[in-house]
């Protein structure tokens, strides 16, 4: 992502921004990128400070930032692990011309694999529950990938099992990145997301908060940040119940636990309810002008809880994608009734 940082006059509602500016705002000038492939455009996403939504809610010594992963070329944080898993697969000789890339995915990883497969010339087949959003199915199809639908009643675990069966029928045909068990997933974040956050916060990050689906983001980024400063607290966010509506996230206690997920490396885990996360999505849109997906709403709820529990610190979270892929989903049922005043109730919990 090629960006230049500029100053714009701020509205009175953000008048306290001046005080924060005295603590050296991050201003990075990145040269305009020249890319030969979409692979070159993955990563280097902006770090966005959440100020309007948090005004008056968090202590003056605390700041919250979010990595806007929707700026990746495939539109999500999943471009990072997808690129790394393909890169490692090719280096190890597991992915070579003639092979088909296959995986089970409820969406963003599928989009990333479909995009990268198209750019690299590999056919892609994806297994996903039939109840994933229409936009996702269409995007994946637009990149030329083939979709196998699994039973929506069986959730993501059903897709995992169906994908295993597909490969068993013709093992030589497929290369399966296996995002749930491939350490290259976490490595992508160790090599890119972590260093970017460290650089963008000038090493000031004190808390890293990330929602868990495969666990790759929280594991890899957390490891890198702790390698730079062992005092950095790494906190995972998960749905508060097995029955939830947070697309992309896993309730670990009731799921097949990914092989790359090691809970002992976490400092804490925060459960978030589906409805409060949905409301946070509305709040972020209406206060910050950032339209994100529900996993970002959940991450923001948790980041806010962390920020309210400390007196000083820099809390960094990850907004995994933007919200345009969810406009047809249940996320937006009843949003017209939502009013900004609800923000006080949502953030008071």
């Amino acid at each position, binding site marked *: 992502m090629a960006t230049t940082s500029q100053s714009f006059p701020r509205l009175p509602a953000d008048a306290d921004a001046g005080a924060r500016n005295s603590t050296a705002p991050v201003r990075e000038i990145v040269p305009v990128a020249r890319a030969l492939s979409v692979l070159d455009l993955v990563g280097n996403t902006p770090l966005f400070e959440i100020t309007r939504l948090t005004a008056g809610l968090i202590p003056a010594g605390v700041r919250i930032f979010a990595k806007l992963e929707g700026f990746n070329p495939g539109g999500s944080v*999943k471009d990072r692990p997808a690129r790394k898993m393909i890169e490692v697969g090719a280096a190890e000789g597991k992915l070579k011309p003639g092979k088909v890339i296959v995986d*089970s*995915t*409820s*969406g*963003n*990883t599928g989009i990333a694999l479909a995009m990268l497969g198209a750019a690299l010339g590999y056919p892609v087949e994806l297994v*996903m*529950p039939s*109840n*994933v959003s229409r936009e996702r199915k269409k995007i994946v199809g637009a990149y030329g990938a083939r979709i196998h639908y699994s039973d*929506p*009643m*069986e*959730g*993501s*675990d*059903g*897709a*995992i099992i169906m994908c295993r069966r597909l490969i068993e029928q013709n093992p030589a045909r497929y290369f399966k990145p296996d*995002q*749930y068990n491939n350490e290259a997933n976490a490595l992508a974040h160790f090599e890119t997301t972590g260093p970017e956050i460290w650089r963008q916060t000038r090493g000031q990050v004190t808390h890293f908060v990330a929602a868990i*689906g*495969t666990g790759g983001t929280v594991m890899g980024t957390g490891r890198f940040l702790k390698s730079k400063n062992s005092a950095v607290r790494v906190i995972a966010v998960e749905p508060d*119940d*097995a*029955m*939830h*509506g*947070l*697309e*992309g*996230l*896993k*309730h670990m206690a*009731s*799921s097949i636990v990914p092989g790359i997920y090691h809970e002992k490396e976490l400092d804490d885990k925060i459960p978030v309810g*589906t*409805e409060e996360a*949905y409301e946070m999505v509305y709040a972020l849109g209406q206060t910050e002008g950032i339209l994100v997906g529900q996993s970002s709403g959940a991450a923001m709820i948790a980041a806010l809880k962390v920020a309210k529990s400390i007196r000083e610190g820099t809390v960094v979270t990850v907004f995994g994608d933007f919200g345009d892929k969810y406009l047809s*989903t*249940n*996320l937006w*049922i*009843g949003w017209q009734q939502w009013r900004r005043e609800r923000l006080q109730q949502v953030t008071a919990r």
Partner: protein
Amino acid sequence: MAVRVRVPTPLRRFTAGVDEVSADGTSINAVIEDLERRHPGMRERLLDEKGDIRRFVNIYLNGDDIRFLDAINSKVKDGDDISIVPAIAGGR
């Protein structure tokens, strides 16, 4: 009025792992109340504190989304098929 209810994986801990159960009632709401009597914990997962269907829960009556029928007041009859489907798939 006995109906067949298909239960998604996240709710099967309330049905001893069974993926299909029977319930009685003349409306979706009544069926949910009966499910709660037989399998305590189900109601809270399906309905919010105001008694409305939770936003992330889809309920299909003979294949039709009840939001496009009469929501939880939709009438059911003997032998109907009801499916409870989480609005998302989980995983990534």
